[in-house]
């Protein structure tokens, strides 16, 4: 993946000088100041003929932040340079610095030539070939994007993080049945085959009717299980959302799901091109147990929510960009595999439903009501996948859904990453999960 190997543009950034300048703002115990530098590139091959044939976006900028108690000040600029940095410092500082600090030079490497992504241009042909190979044909419009991001966080003293980089791809497939989106850490034959398989399955099930309102066994394939975990475990354990209902620390030790559920968030084991060793506040990431045998081990927290807490630890901060404030969010969820092989899962779910991928999910953090929408799936009969079923949704309270897990597949695989748009900050989330077997859950058309 050569694009991910591009060197950091922040290699020559004088982090010490930035830290010294930030330290001028920190004049009370517990103050936290940091500077965030980012560079983004997006190359897009759009669908259709109405707009430009290729879109490329390149941007960079910085933000300076000061946290003091429950208050936060942020100043963000669309550009990186000494004047922009000094201006942002002035906006955020609460007092005039006691001594003048030389403005850092903030040398940033120039962009390396024109934006180009041949793998993006080649991808639609690969998908169409995959569809044809499956002896199917239907109108299909693909929008393919490559996303690259570099970031560097410098703190006023404690934070010394290395520059981070991410490279991944997003694809939106528009068919007469609707839109299907996918995220991939790489882009090539394997991903084209995966997408073609998904699209052809959806096409062949296009006339299937939605199941009647019903309770029974449901198998969530890894991609669907990943969305369930993201919505029902990760969001439910974000410190800022927990705080809507009370003290986030009170969640620790609460039994949230079946004992078969062991869930972690670990950005350091994400797919290689998006792997991280520090978060968007420059804090080292941790292999964080969210659920251990179904019981809450540790909520997701950032510097703001972990300040003064003995139970909440930072390292899970994410921000959509320099203009956004960081907030606790999962990055790469892992559901540890169980003991049920695929055949055993199907045998246990006789008469139930197999749901391969969720279109979307949502959680109401106050009521705990959770919704998961599916474009379709299959009935399970006699230990095998039988006739297709159409659109349906799974509805329930988080605790009830997670308690309904009666089996976990024995093969975890990278699955079901997607865009998360909490608080208007759209960002990718990744997952590694096996299939899940749920018993007695409510499915409605």
């Amino acid at each position: 993946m050569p694009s991910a190997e591009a060197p950091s543009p922040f290699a020559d950034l004088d982090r010490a000088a930035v830290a010294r300048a930030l330290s001028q703002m920190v004049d009370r115990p517990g103050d936290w100041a940091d500077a965030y530098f980012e560079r983004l590139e997006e190359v897009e091959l759009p669908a259709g003929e109405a707009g430009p044939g290729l879109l490329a976006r390149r941007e960079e900028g910085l933000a300076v932040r000061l946290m003091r108690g429950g208050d936060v000040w942020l100043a963000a600029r669309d550009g990186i340079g000494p004047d922009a940095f000094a201006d942002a410092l002035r906006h955020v500082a609460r007092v005039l610095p006691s001594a003048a600090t030389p403005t850092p030079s903030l040398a940033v490497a120039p962009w390396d030539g024109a934006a180009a992504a041949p793998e993006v241009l080649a991808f639609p042909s690969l998908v169409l070939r995959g569809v044809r190979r499956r002896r199917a044909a239907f109108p299909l419009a693909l929008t393919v994007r490559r996303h690259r991001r570099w970031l560097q966080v410098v703190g006023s003293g404690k934070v010394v993080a290395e520059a981070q980089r991410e490279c991944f791809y997003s694809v939106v497939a528009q068919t007469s049945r609707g839109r299907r989106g996918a995220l991939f850490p790489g882009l090539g034959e394997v991903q084209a085959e995966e997408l073609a398989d998904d699209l052809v399955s959806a096409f062949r099930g296009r006339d299937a009717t939605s199941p009647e309102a019903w309770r029974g066994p449901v198998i969530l394939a890894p991609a669907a299980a990943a969305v369930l975990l993201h919505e029902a475990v990760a969001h439910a354990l974000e410190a800022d959302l927990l705080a809507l209902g009370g003290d986030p620390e009170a969640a620790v030790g609460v039994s949230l799901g079946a004992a078969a559920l062991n869930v972690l968030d670990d950005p350091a084991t994400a797919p290689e091109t998006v792997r991280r060793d520090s978060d968007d506040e420059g804090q080292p990431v941790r292999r964080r147990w969210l659920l251990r045998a179904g019981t809450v081990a540790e909520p997701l927290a950032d510097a703001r929510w972990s300040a003064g807490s003995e139970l909440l630890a930072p390292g899970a901060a994410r921000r959509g960009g320099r203009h956004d404030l960081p907030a606790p969010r999962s990055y790469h969820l892992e559901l540890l595999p169980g003991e049920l092989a695929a055949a055993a899962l199907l045998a246990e779910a006789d008469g139930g439903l197999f749901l391969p991928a969720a279109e979307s999910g949502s959680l109401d953090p106050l009521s705990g009501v959770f919704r998961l929408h599916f474009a379709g799936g299959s009935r399970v009969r006699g230990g095998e996948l039988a006739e297709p079923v159409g659109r349906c949704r799974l509805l329930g309270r988080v605790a009830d859904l997670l308690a309904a897990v009666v089996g976990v597949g024995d093969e975890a695989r990278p699955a079901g990453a997607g865009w998360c748009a909490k608080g208007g900050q759209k960002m990718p989330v990744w997952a590694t999960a096996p299939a899940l077997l749920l018993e007695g859950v409510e499915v409605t058309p």
Partner: protein
Amino acid sequence: MSRLAETLEALSRAGFSHAEAYAKRGRSRRLSVGVGGRSAAFHQEEGWAVRATTQRASLFYAASGAPRPDVAWPEADGYPLAFPDPDAAGAAAPWSEPSDFETPLVGESEGLRLLAAVAAALGDEMPTARLLSAVLEDGSSESRLLSSRGVEAHWRRRVAVFHAEAALGEVRARVDLARREARRFGPAELARLLADRLAAAAGGAPQGFSGRDRGELVLAPAVGAHLLAALTPYLVGAPAADLAAAVADRRGRFAAAAVTVVDDGRHPGGALESACDGEGLPTRRTLLVEAGVYRQPLLSWAETAAGVRPAVGGKSAARPGGCARRASWRDPPRPAPTHLYVVPDPALPAAALLADLARGYYLLDVTAPPRLDLAEGAFRVPVCGFAVHGGRAREAVSGVELCGTVGALLRGVQGVARDLAFFPLDGMMGAPTMRVGGLELRAAGR
């Protein structure tokens, strides 16, 4: 020579036959209060973008900072792109820039005081309610555009938005509003909106509700605006006229006589009021539906030039709307509504629509976005409001969906009031209170 002109020259030297260069600068202040504390952010944004075409291919390139003619342009791909002449959208009507474009952004203390006052006023309105979060954003921007076809434009914008979410036990309600500047928001008004929505959302299925009811309905502006937003496939873009024809009645009538729909990029006082659209062409008021008769969809200059059929069964020429919108400097312009609204009846107060409602529902807001089934011409939207008996609200109602066909909705409008209100959806969507028959309330999920 300006940076934009230099950028156009550079593109010409690079072999592009036509191009357009756009630059935007803006400042905004964002203040928030929530369970985690308070925040104050100040943003300075600056970016630019070009669209360029050869005879065979085209590109869009956007970057942060000031325009740079010396960048390495990506290789164009796909299809050629057409650019408008300066008169592609017709002559511009006279327009003066509103004086409030000059007002300074809300100050940090001033904005935080407003948010604190909203929390206090909500406590007065509904002592058991909690303000979970409130955000106030106030911004101004300035854009310039130059094209090789002779379009040259400069325009400014001024807009403020307010978002808030409140809770009453497990019930939540949110309010999203946009005005031209932050000082036009009043804490008492905002608190009352939140309290009304919480009161409605705290209800359940109405007494004696068997899962379906076809009572008369009065839709508050928020419900009408969300429905209008869902109906944009029938009102915006080249395929809209055919879709509209499919839901018209046998006589070709699209909506009830009470319904007139307009899009107006120059709506006086509107949050997005501007002389120019995202391609630098003059904005205008475009009549889409007149007293129930479908006149034309909202079309870009390119769609009009391509000869899109303007009306249901009509043959008159459609007028281009000057309706290209850029979501930001990062995004290419696309045809989209600016202030799309149902024209109010200045003689009819909203209370008059409720007064003679013997039995029905006053629907205050949606609790999730509407779902439109274009193939079936049907919609459903979760709503909350009040059951009405003898013209008076009797009990709060939620957990229900408003359902029906698009035709029944449009032709079921019996009256529109004068209380036009806009909401920030895909553009500013506006509606007055409307009285509607022929639709159904169902228990959610049925």
